[in-house]
């Protein structure tokens, strides 16, 4: 199952690294990343595959939320289906 991770917050060193380390720990594979910094705001969208994750989905959400708090940015994960439903026929 694919999911989209979105990270939004004030840019600083280590946001990408922090998220990637969390994903590595729970064995979530990154498929694609797009990232921009506009007016010092960091925005990243990441397509990931969670099928081989070593924890249940709610634990992935919690792990990312925790990391978001540590980094002072908003991190959320949502199933890709919700975006596909809205933007793809």
């Amino acid at each position, binding site marked *: 199952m694919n999911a989209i991770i979105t990270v939004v917050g004030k840019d600083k060193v280590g946001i990408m690294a922090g998220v990637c380390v969390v994903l590595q720990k729970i064995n979530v594979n990154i*498929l694609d990343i*797009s990232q921009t910094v506009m007016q010092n705001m960091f925005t990243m969208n990441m397509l990931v595959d969670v099928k081989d994750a070593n924890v249940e989905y709610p634990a992935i959400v919690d792990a990312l939320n925790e990391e978001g708090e540590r980094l002072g940015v908003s991190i*959320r994960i949502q*199933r890709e289906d*919700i*975006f596909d*439903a809205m*933007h793809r026929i």
Partner: protein
Amino acid sequence: MLNQHEIIETLNMIDNQHLDIRTITMGISLRSCAHPDAKICATKMYDKITKYAENLVKTGEDIEREMGIPIINKRISVTPIAIAAESCETEDYTIFAKAMDDAAKTCGVNFIGGFSALVQKGFTIGDRRLINSIPEALATTDFVCSSVNVGSTKAGINMDAVKLMGQTIKNTALRTADRDGFGCAKLVVFCNAVEDNPFMAGAFHGVGEPECAINVGVSGPGVVYNALKGVKGQPFDIVAETIKKTAFKITRMGQLIACEASKRLGAEFGIVDLSLAPTPAIGDSVARILEEIGVDVCGTHGTTAALAMLNDAVKKGGVMASSSVGGLSGAFIPVSEDEGMIAAAEKGVLTLDKLEAMTCVCSVGLDMIAVPGDTSAETISAIIADEAAIGMVNNKTTAVRIIPAPGKTVGDSIEMGGLLGTAPVMPVHNEGSVDFVNRGGRIPAPLHSLRN
């Protein structure tokens, strides 16, 4: 991969424009619960509801977490109790309302609908018992919702039922006088009631429905409002197109959630209800959409036309997005639940008469309207008859959910709390309709040709 703009658009809708799934409603048939002993029948109902809906709330929360979209309400609708309990040898049907209420509490849902009767052509024994039990049932339960269908395009209007419902609404208000007549917020009088409506207070699981079905109601007045801000001053064709595109996106989300929920709960996917359902929150108002379309205050001249266009465009956009559309589908105009409607009513621009005209072109009818506490039962019946006539002649669902707030008068307002909001007390005409209502009998079904 999805592009960044698309992802941000979706997140914006959820975070800033109040996009949500308004309700996942599980419809459960209680026809298998019939038993002559009322206590056994009520126990069977409780057991069946709690068994089928055991995981409803948890599943809703799981999906909410995975998809990242709020699912505001998880609810249950059941077979009209007048049918399910008819074989019981008891006059008072409150026992079944209590069983429903207990089941709702056990399952963790916030409303359960179906304390209902369908009497468009006449009463059965069970129908009369149920209607007579409504005031007590609504006063002594927390989550039970009740509805009565008094008319249809095919059967006409049962004016005896209309009269009875005027009295029932008054009695319900008096029985819940300590809460400004709150019981009436859980009581709807329908014409052409639909069997698969997921929205309260009028949800019930119709007799043509399967054993168990999942119906989903989407919402998104805020999303439509924001989309329209981007087409200021443009002609109506463009406004309609913009609404259609937005409704399509909203409904696709509803369809996804409905399929996912029905799969996980092992229930049939019923319908997606394409409604624009407002909440009292700022930025989640249907009235503000109408004002964005160009009327200064909702309720002034032009409002009906703007609403007609909005309602039609929402349906056109939504229909293609879902494999099965049903319920009440259209824009709701509940006064107390819509911040813009409340403001317009307080200004005196939005009146009962204008609301009646608006209900000719949009979903449902006179919804969540507070009127003075001294409004007579006959006047309420006459309001119901007018609204039912609109539904009957136009082949659409109409409804009345009106609260004659005890001790309150024009200028006061009543606080319902939560999604039910705040209702300013609106004036009714002082001239009576007693002789009209007391005639009783049936208004015959209308002709379906020579439509002028």
